[in-house]
C-alpha cells in the first residue's frame, strides 16, 4: 500500500494488521475530556483525564479572562476549550503522536514567540504555534488543513499572538455542528409547507367540494405501453389457467400497490384461474397473505371463501434478489412444490411454460428489470408489469424494449380504469339468491326442535374457523397452522365452497324432517383433516375431510378423544374428536348432506412421494379441487369508496408540492443572488 496521509500517517495495511494497538485515548481526548460524549462514559470517568482548574491556573498563571469568551457549545471545536480543560501533565505522558506533533511544531523557528509575549506572556512556552505544512496526498493531508480546522488554527494563532499565515484560511461559510433545540424561525417555512401539503391531501377526504382535475378514462388508452393488451390477456383467462403473480413490494408501497394487487387477483380468481404468488421480498410473502385475506373478508357475505393450495398458492420467498429469480426460472418445478409455510403444494406444473401468464407488481424498476432479464427470457409465457408512479419512468424502457413484457399498469389511475372496465363487464350481474348462505345457527338448531323423541342434545355454538392454509394432510398441525381467523360463518361457507356443484339448499335444514335421528359428526376444523384407519396419529390415512363434511357416528374410544364413523363408501374410519362437532340429525337430511360431503379417499386424493422428509409414509394431496370460486361478486364487492378521493388527494398534493418547490427555490435563488451582490463580507 502506498497511501500517503501526511503527518497523520497510518501504518501500511499489512503491518497494521499485525501490530494493532490496544484501545487508546487520543491526545485530543486527554486534552479535552469535556468533549467526551455521553456514550463514552468509561473513558470520561478516568481520573487521569479529569481536568483540574486549580492545576490549570498554576500552569498558566492567571488565565486570561478573554479565553473564556471563546468557549462554545459542547460539541463544537474550540481552542479555548482545549486551553481551559487541559490538564497539567508531563510531556512524556502525552500520546506518542502528540509528542511527535509537538516536536515538529517546535522544529519550526518562525513560531510566534516574539509576539506572544505581549498578549499571553507565558503561554508560548506551552503552545508553540506550528507552521502549516502543505503536502500533497490523499484526503488526510486535507484533514490536517481543512478549512474548519484552519479557522481553529487561526484562532489559536490569534490567541497566542501568531499571525495567521495559512493563506487559505478564508472565512468559511461551512456549517459547524450545532444541535438545534426548540422552535426556530428557520423551521417555520418547513412547518408551513408541511401543513399545506397535509391540508391538500386531507381535504378531498373531508369534502367532495375539493375536487380538481379529470377522472381517469373508463377505457385504457390503446397505444399506452400495451396496458390495453395486458388487460385483455388477464380478461381471457379460463378456469384451468395458472397465473404467476409476483409481489415485489413491501409494506412501504402498500398504500399505492395494494389496490392494484387486489384488483388483479380478483380479476384472476373471478374467472376461476389460480394465482400462484411468489416474491423475492420476505415480507411481501406475508403481506400477500393479508391481501388475499382482505379480499376474502370482502366477499364473505356472498359465501365465497378461498383456500390456500386450492384457490391460490403462496410460494416460499426467493432469496438472493436476481439470483433467486434465476433460480425460479431454472428450478421452477422444485420451487413450486412447497408453500411459504414449508408445506407441499401438490402443484403438478413442471416449467414456467405451463403458466398462462405472469404478473409482476413491483415498487421499483429494478424488480421489473430483474424479472425481465432473469425470468422472462427463459419462458414463452408473457409477463405483465404493474407498478407505481415513482417507478414508471424507469420501468417503461424495459417494457417498451422487451418482447416478453406485454404491458405496464401504473398507479391508482390505471386501477380506477381497470375497476371501471370490470364493473362494466359485470354490470348486469345479479347475485343468485340460491347462493345466499344461511347463518350457522340455523343449520345446527333444527335437530333439537324437530326431534322431540330424542334426548336433548348439545347445540354447538358457531365456531370461528380459521382460513385454511394448506392441503398437506397434517390434521394435528392444522389448527396451529391455520391462517387468520374470520368472523364470518366460515363453517358453512367452506361447505358451500367445497361443494360448488351441490345445491346449497341441502345444507339448510328442512322443516319437514321428521324421520329418526342419527348421531353425526360435522367437521369444523379448517383445511383438510385426516381420516385414519385406527384411533391414533400413526395409523394409515384413509382419506381426508374438510369443514362442513358430515358423517354417521358408529362409536368412539372410551376417553372420547377419537370418534369412529362411516365414510361415504361405508368404510369404518376414525377422526380426532377436537376436529369435529357431534350432534344429531334426521336421517333423510343426513342422506342429502352426506352425498355432498367429500369423504371419499378415492375421489379426492392421489398419493405422492415427493420427499421423504424423515417420514416414511406417503403424503396426500388434493388433485381434484371441488371447485374454485368463479363469481362476479369477487370483483363487484371491491371497496371503491375512497377511490375518487384518493385521486383528488393526489392531484391536490401534487399542486401543493409544486407550489412549495417553486416558492422555496425562488426564495433561495433570490437570497443567493443578494448574497453574491453583497460579497463575502455581507456589505
Amino acid at each position, binding site marked *: 500500500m*502506498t497511501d500517503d496521509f501526511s503527518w497523520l500517517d497510518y501504518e501500511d495495511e499489512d503491518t497494521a494488521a499485525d501490530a494493532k494497538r490496544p484501545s487508546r485515548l487520543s491526545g485530543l481526548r486527554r486534552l479535552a475530556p469535556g468533549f467526551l460524549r455521553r456514550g463514552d462514559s468509561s*473513558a470520561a470517568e478516568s481520573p487521569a483525564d479529569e481536568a483540574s482548574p486549580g492545576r490549570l491556573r498554576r500552569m498558566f498563571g492567571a488565565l486570561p479572562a478573554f479565553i473564556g469568551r471563546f468557549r462554545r457549545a459542547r460539541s463544537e471545536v474550540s481552542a479555548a476549550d482545549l486551553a481551559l480543560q487541559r490538564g497539567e501533565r508531563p510531556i512524556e505522558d502525552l500520546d506518542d503522536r502528540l509528542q511527535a506533533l509537538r516536536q515538529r511544531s517546535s522544529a519550526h523557528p518562525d513560531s510566534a514567540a516574539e509576539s506572544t509575549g505581549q498578549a499571553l506572556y507565558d503561554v508560548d512556552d506551552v503552545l508553540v504555534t506550528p507552521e502549516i505544512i502543505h503536502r*500533497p496526498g490523499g484526503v*488526510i493531508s486535507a484533514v490536517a*488543513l481543512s478549512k474548519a480546522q484552519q479557522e*481553529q488554527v487561526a484562532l489559536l494563532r490569534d490567541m497566542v499572538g501568531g499571525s495567521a499565515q495559512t493563506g487559505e484560511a478564508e472565512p468559511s461559510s461551512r456549517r459547524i455542528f450545532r444541535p438545534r433545540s426548540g422552535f426556530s424561525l428557520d423551521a417555520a417555512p418547513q412547518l408551513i409547507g408541511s401543513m399545506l401539503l397535509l391540508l391538500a391531501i386531507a381535504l378531498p377526504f373531508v369534502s367532495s367540494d375539493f375536487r380538481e382535475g379529470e377522472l381517469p378514462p373508463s377505457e385504457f388508452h390503446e397505444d399506452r405501453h400495451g396496458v390495453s393488451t395486458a388487460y385483455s390477456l388477464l380478461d381471457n383467462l379460463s378456469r384451468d389457467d395458472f397465473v404467476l403473480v409476483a409481489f415485489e413490494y413491501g409494506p412501504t408501497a402498500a398504500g399505492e400497490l395494494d389496490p392494484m394487487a387486489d384488483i388483479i387477483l380478483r380479476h384472476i380468481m373471478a374467472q376461476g384461474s389460480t394465482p400462484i404468488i411468489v416474491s423475492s421480498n*420476505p415480507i411481501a410473502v406475508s403481506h400477500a397473505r393479508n391481501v388475499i385475506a382482505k379480499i376474502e373478508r370482502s366477499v364473505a357475505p356472498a359465501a365465497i371463501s378461498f383456500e390456500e393450495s386450492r384457490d391460490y398458492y403462496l410460494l416460499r420467498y426467493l432469496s438472493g*434478489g436476481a439470483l433467486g429469480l434465476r433460480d425460479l426460472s431454472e428450478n421452477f418445478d422444485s420451487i413450486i412444490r412447497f408453500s411459504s409455510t414449508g408445506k407441499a403444494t401438490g402443484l403438478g406444473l413442471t416449467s414456467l411454460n405451463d403458466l398462462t401468464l405472469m404478473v409482476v407488481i413491483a415498487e421499483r424498476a429494478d424488480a421489473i428489470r430483474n424479472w425481465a432479464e432473469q425470468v422472462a427470457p427463459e419462458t414463452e409465457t408473457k409477463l405483465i408489469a404493474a407498478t407505481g408512479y415513482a417507478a414508471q419512468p424507469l420501468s417503461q424502457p424495459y417494457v417498451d424494449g422487451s418482447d416478453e413484457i406485454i404491458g405496464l399498469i401504473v398507479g391508482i389511475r390505471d386501477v380506477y380504469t381497470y375497476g371501471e372496465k370490470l364493473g362494466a363487464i359485470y354490470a348486469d350481474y345479479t347475485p343468485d339468491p340460491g347462493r345466499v348462505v344461511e347463518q350457522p345457527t340455523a343449520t345446527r338448531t333444527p335437530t333439537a326442535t324437530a326431534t322431540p323423541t330424542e334426548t336433548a342434545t348439545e347445540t354447538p355454538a358457531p365456531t370461528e374457523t380459521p382460513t385454511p392454509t394448506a392441503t398437506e394432510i397434517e390434521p394435528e398441525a392444522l389448527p396451529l397452522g391455520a391462517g387468520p381467523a374470520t368472523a364470518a360463518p366460515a363453517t358453512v361457507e367452506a361447505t358451500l365452497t367445497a361443494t360448488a356443484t351441490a345445491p346449497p339448499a341441502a345444507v339448510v335444514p328442512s322443516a319437514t324432517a321428521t324421520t329418526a335421528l342419527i348421531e353425526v359428526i360435522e367437521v369444523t376444523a379448517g383445511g383438510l383433516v385426516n381420516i385414519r384407519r385406527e384411533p391414533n396419529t400413526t395409523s394409515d390415512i384413509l382419506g381426508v375431510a374438510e369443514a362442513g363434511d358430515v358423517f354417521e357416528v358408529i362409536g368412539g374410544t372410551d376417553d372420547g378423544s377419537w370418534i369412529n364413523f362411516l365414510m361415504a363408501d361405508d368404510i369404518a374410519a376414525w377422526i380426532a374428536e377436537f376436529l369435529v362437532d357431534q350432534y344429531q340429525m334426521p336421517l333423510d337430511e343426513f342422506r342429502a348432506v352426506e352425498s355432498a360431503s367429500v369423504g371419499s379417499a378415492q375421489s379426492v386424493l392421489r398419493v405422492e412421494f415427493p420427499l421423504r422428509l424423515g417420514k416414511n409414509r406417503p403424503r396426500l394431496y388434493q388433485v381434484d379441487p371441488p371447485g374454485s370460486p368463479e363469481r362476479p361478486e369477487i370483483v363487484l364487492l371491491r371497496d371503491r369508496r375512497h377511490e375518487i378521493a384518493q385521486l383528488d388527494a393526489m392531484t391536490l398534493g401534487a399542486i401543493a408540492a409544486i407550489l412549495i418547490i417553486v416558492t422555496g427555490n425562488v426564495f433561495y435563488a433570490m437570497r443567493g443572488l443578494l448574497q453574491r451582490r453583497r460579497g463575502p463580507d455581507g456589505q
Partner: protein
Amino acid sequence: MPLDDTTVRVYSIIFVAITAVLIFTARFFHARRSRRSTGQGAAGFERMPGWIGQGIETGRPLHLGFGGAAIGSEKTPIAAAEAEFFYHIIRATQSSDSAPLISTSSAATVPLAQDTIRRAWQGDPQWKQAQWYPQGDRSIAYAAGVSAMMGVDEPAGHVLAGSFGPELALMLNSAEQLGQGTLAVSDQLDGGAVAFAMADEVLIGEQMFSAAAHLSTDTTALADARVSDVWRGLLIIGLSILLLINLSAQLASVSGTLVLAAALGLLVVSALLFRRS
C-alpha cells in the same frame, strides 16, 4: 438489429476477458509510476475533510451507509466497491476516538461491513459499529433507523454510498435538520436524483466506483478507475460513430466530406474531454 443469445454470450466472454487483461495491464503501469495526488479538490469530496476533521476533534464518529447494496445479489460488486471506498475513509479517521459506524439494510452485508472496519480501523472496533436495519432495497425502516441513529450517535458526517431509493430523502432531511454533513451516491436513478437535490455533496453514476481512487494513491484503485474510463471512452466513441453514420444516412444531401469533418471534430472533442476527465 437484436443479437441472438449465442452472440451475446460470446461477446460477454470477450468483454470480461478484455476487462481482466486491462485491469492487470493498468495495475502494472500504475505500479511503475510514482505516486500521484488524486483526490484533492475533486468534486464531491470538498467537504469530507471537514467532517473528518470535526469528527476527530469532537470525538464524534463518521457514518457510512451501504443502503441496500447486498452481498449475494446482483449488487455484490457495488457493495464491494463501496467497501473499498469506506476502507479509505476509515483509514482517514484513525486519529479519532470514535470508530466509524457502518449501516446496511442487507443482513448479508453485515460481515463485509465488520470486515471493512476491522481492516481499516487500527483501534479496537466493536462489532456494534456495523449496524443492520431491516431490510431490502427500498427500506423505509432502514431510513428511519438511520435517522434515529443520527440523533443518538451524532455523527460528524454521513457518507451514503450504495443502493438507495427515494427513502434517501428521509435520511438527508434528518441530517439537514441536525446540521450534519452528507455525501450521497446511489446506483438507483431515483436515489441519485434525491441525492442531487438534497445532499451536501453528491457523486453521480460510475463515480461510486472510482471514489476509492480519489481518496488514496493506491495503484490498484487507480488502475480499476482507469479501466472503467477506457471502456467509457470507447463506448462514447462507438456511440458517436453510430450516431454519425445514422445522421449521414438520413442527410444524404449533405456532403460526405462535411460528415467526415464533423466526425473527426467529434472524436477530437471526445478525446479532449476524456483526457480532461
